[in-house]
């Protein structure tokens, strides 16, 4: 299993899909308004699940900010914390 997800890793993943630098990612932004589509969310989701996070597409998709994603990902980090 890959290393557990860190906030920097989370930022870096988002940045890759948003075509930004990690420090440019605005965690308060709405994923929809950032230009993400469901396929990208599914792809990110698969990547994060591989780190041991138990989230579903619907869980992520109904959040209204990246900060909520991070909260959710932290809360669902299965048993490692």
């Amino acid at each position, binding site marked *: 299993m890959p290393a557990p997800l860190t906030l920097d890793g989370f930022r870096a993943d988002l940045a890759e899909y948003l075509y930004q630098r990690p420090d440019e990612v605005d965690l308060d932004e709405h994923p929809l308004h950032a230009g993400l589509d*469901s*396929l990208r969310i599914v792809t990110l989701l698969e990547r994060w699940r591989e780190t041991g996070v138990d989230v579903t597409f619907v869980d992520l998709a*109904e959040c209204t900010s990246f900060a909520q994603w991070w909260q959710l990902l932290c809360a669902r980090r299965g048993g490692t914390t």
Partner: protein
Amino acid sequence: MTPRRPLPPAQEGVWTGQRLDPDSPAYNTAEYVHIHGPVDAALFDEALHLVVAQTEALHVVYGVDDEGRPWEADAPAGDWRLHTADLTAEPDPQAAALAWMDEDLARPVDLARGLVFGHALLRIAGEEHLWYHRVHHIALDGFGLSLVARRVAEVYTALVAGEPVRDSGFGTPASVREEESAYRESPRFAEDRAYWTDRFADRPPVVTQAGRVALPGRTFHRRVVDLDAARTEVLRAVARDLKVTWSELLLAVTVARLHHTTGAPEIILSLPVMGRLGSVSLRVPCMVRNILPLRVPVAGSDSPRDLAVRISRELRAALPHQRYRYEQLRRDLGLLGGQRRLSGPGVNIMPFAYDLRFAGHRSTVHNVSAGPVDDLSVNVYDRSEGAGLRIAVDAHPDLYDAADLAAFQEGLLALLTAAVAAPDRTLDELRVRESVAVLDGGPLPGPARPVLGLIAEHAARSGGSVAVEHDGRRVTYAELLDSAHDLARRLAVRGVGPGDLVAITLPRGIDAVIAVLGVLLRGAAYCPFDPAAPPARGAGLLDEARPALVLTAATYADVTADDRPGPGTAPPAPPAAPAPDDLAYVLHTSGSTGRPKGVEVGHGALDHFVAGAAHRYGPRPGDRVLGFAPLHFDTSVEEIFLTLCAGATLVVRTDDMTDSVPAFLDACARLRISFLDLPTAYWHEVAHAVSTGTAALPTEVRTVVIGGESALPERVDRWREAVGTSVRLFNTYGPTEGTVVATVADLHDPGLAPGDVPIGLPLPGTAAAVVDGELHLLGGNLALGYRGNRPPDAARFAPLHALPGAPRAYRTGDLVRVGDDGQLRHLGRSDTEFKISGHRVHPAEVESALLRHPAVRDAVVVGQVLPGGTRRLVAYVVPDGPAPAAAAIREHLRTALPAAMVPSAVEFLDELPRTSSGKTDRHALATQLPVTRTAVVGTLEHTVTAVWRQVLGAATLSAQDDVFEQGAQSLQAIQAANRLGVALGREVKVAWLFQHPTAAELARFLAERARPAAVGLPQSLLADAVLDPRVRPGDGPRAGGTPERILLTGATGFVGVHLLAELLTSTGAEILCPVRAPSPAAATERVRQALDTHRIGLTDAARDRITAVPADLDRPRLGLSEEEFTALARTCDTILHNAANVSVLREYAGLRAANTESTRELLRLAAPRRIPLHFVSTLSVAPPLALAAEVPEAFLPPHPGLRYGYQQSKWAAEQLLRQAAERGLPVTVHRLGRIVGPAATGQVNERDFLWNVLRAGIPEGIVPDLFEEEIWTPVDHLAEALVRLCLGPPGPATVFNHAATPPVRLGDVYDWLEEYGYPLRRLPLDRWRAELQRSSGAAATTLAFFDARDADAGDATGADLRLGRVRADNVVDALRTGGVTCPPVGRELVHRYLDHCVTTGKLPAPAGRRSRPATPAK
């Protein structure tokens, strides 16, 4: 049922689509889940019922209120059952299951009654099950379906395990509606709108492979392919490498494929988007899906990488705005209705693999239908468990056939493979070479020989045979060649040498042929000009052509009469034989850049053409070929050289030969023409005349060659029916650039299907290629190029790289198709070029001439093909200031352009219509055919306009306004359709309103639609139209000489009584009048009354010659006793059969006795002594304009326009006369239009329908729009003409259309009434009927007539009964010879009628105008 609520926007879009075609099942979406394992059907059923009960969106009904506004309301779906079936006994259980699904899917759903879904559990093997789930798209979208499926798996699994069922976690549709309402109030909504309206502000053209739109189809074609895991992984890897998603790479490949098939510089895709991110709807099974229009500019120099990155960027910009409804955007942009659209093919990416487990058993999901397919749709499903992608390509069945779809899909997959393998190669490089169809005309029988040599051979071998004839003059081959050599010498003396150009403006004739040959013999080239061309154009062309000499009729005479020896002593040496590339002639055709262009044809091409054409269809020695074309048409090259190189005789026509088709064919017969070369437009006339019997093809004609424009299939069919297939009919096609003729088809081939008009195969020795649908010509026939420097045109001659060796080709601009038989069919032009009367017209050339007129600001010229097949040019002009007279514009054009290029109509517009991209909308103008107003259509149009005005609240909307441009929305279209349906009492489909976006178009469509499609004549009618074979001319003495006893039927009617008076005054004969009466005295009294009623004064002596006979024309033997009948047959000399029952409302059965059977009886009476029988018929037996462009003076075959009993009975009677005429009986038929009162007295025909309408309407100041125009004949003139024609010496004509005067326009009649002093409002018929008081007798009668017509279903449909042009040559000719002229039918005559009516109190005197004394009778 809960209270009704307005439909949410997403549902409204689907609902509107469904309303366009209420019986369509297209909105049924379905999928099936293949469960790999045992299924407990009872528990599955329980699970389904539970889930359905929890899915609120499935418990909604939809309706529409009185205003046409849709609503929805919650209502339990009620009882429903799971369909279960065990298909394991079927030979192919899977196929049986899919067939069952297809059948289920084809059932339309009634949204008003609920139950929008269905479920089935089909067992296809021991432990394999298919769970099929269908639902109307208004309730669930793809994501909604997946929520339901997941929930069913969860509940079923719990039930099987005996565990409690967990809460569904479903949210409510109400929360989704609230969220949507909040969104629409939010700033976000405004921002989204701004984004989209800005992105699409230029309303970009949507280019698709089909090139048109169609209403949603009920079904679709589908092709499915699965990409295996390995291929899918390559795709994903390349996408990662390009830093895009695999879906974006697939979009890029789709765009690339569409660019390859359409060449469009921008592709606009339709992307279904989930619309649920960050929304409560993520947990609500419902329908919120939206469509996102995606603009992708694309060029051949782009690589898949470029495209994918561009798409990714565009998507990132667009996705944040994905909630803004697609339908709303279309409304914002005014892209509803007609051919307008916002986006093209769809790409639907479903990244969600269902990974469902049913009680632990694996399953796979398969889509069956994704809803309606507007154009093409690429659906991509990510299959579960790493199985790779499934690509299902759907196509609208009206736009693409299965082969189109297969080609598109295969091309897409091939391109996908290529793009993934080399994402940085350009699209041009990746283009999978389409195979180019090459058609070969086969070899020449031998090498092409120089034309001059061939002609010289004939002169040497048979110099005495006639080469050319014209107007009584003829020259032999020897004389022709001598003259040509003589001219060549004289030209040399004038300094003309090889390589020079000599302009020829000689009219058709022998001199023109000598001139052509003489110039060529000198080694020079000729350039023919239209001697009748406007001087300005001629001068311009001459400047450009730079001829060494111009041979006009005058200079030609001068040159040939000049006996001066040349400036040297010896005659100049004859030039060497021309080389293939030496110029032979230059011909001008219309140019796309606004200037005519000169096509340079070399000797090689000329020789090659003559060799190929002579072999394929050319004349033989002994043929007499008509020289039809003037020199400046390249058909003259065919006529002159094919004929002279074959040793045949060219018979050049005289100018007056084409005055009429019968005269033309007569002249051909006289000139013993055996080979006819005709422009297609003229041949259309010939074919028509020959098919109707108006003229006959001379028996010596064995070959007819046509060309110049597309032959009308209808005319070809007519010709084949009338002429048969023994006369060779060659359809030729060819631009001047390919030397006269490029392809030829045998239209006399008996194997050709009706309606099929191929242009055939290339000439021997040449070839043609079809590249992307466009015809390219190849081979030795190609012209050298264009004269002068003409870069854009010159590019049409270019190497064709698609073929090995890249041979030189000419790109014709003609779109063609290769049929199954390998022959070409012409489909149209790829540019705006239009053919009219054999001229190629580039509208640009006419437009540039128009723009030189000072009062013209902007102009567009388009070619139109009218419903009857007539081609015409129309100029749409935006005037600079007040509009000048159309005649002035045309006059201006006549000074600059040849006659054929002067538009026949000039219409003024405030501005030119533009396409969404701002270009002039030529298509809109080309399809804007002249408004054919008729009573019924006029009324209908008014009704439609009124409804649209009401619905749109636009009081000023005109019938020509595009309602969608005026802001109409789908809902309003539905409202309008509802109201129209009520107003018209018939079904009006919403779809029709979208297809016909102006009131005028819709009204025409509705009128058209109501017309019955096929000839549905009563069987009894056809049986009655057969004349007993025993009715034949007798052998005994025949009636003849000056008639002494004339039988006149119908003598007491309006026409009859005037005929009676005319017969009595112009002959000394006894007039026998059969009259329905109990006794001779009563009969006599009835005739006397009729004469009195019509104020016909006769001398007593004249009256004494009337013998009234009691009779009944409805009965056998006219109700006479056997002796009376025989006596009549023995003694009478002439019969005028004028009696008829004219009850227009009666069925045929009620009229046949009086109108048809009486004619049969009279023929029986007339036959033994061959008594001339003249039959008074009606123009209404003719087919309406929609079926025939003209009404010939000939007997008419049965046609669908024979709808009323009266017409049918008269037509059947005419058929009896036709057979009588064919058997040699002396009969004539006289067809009448509206017969109005005698011009001499101004009395009116009080029983006339129109008169009754006027008499009812004038006192109330209102008149109805009834018809555009019709033929009027004053009864006194008619009687004189008819009696003259019947009693004069018999001529060749049998049928006479009494329509020698121009038609009278109803609008003019109303003008004249107003000028007389009656203030009038002109109303559509229905309003006139509504406003007219039923008080007066005339009003009551007239209204009753219309009421009765309404009751007759046949007419309530509003068919257009207008006639085409009524031919009246027979009448005109006969009356001219007889010195009879018709008094003018116009204002004065109408005023005379009014004077009479006022004097006799039939009409009130107009206010402010004292009643005048009646105009004295002549």
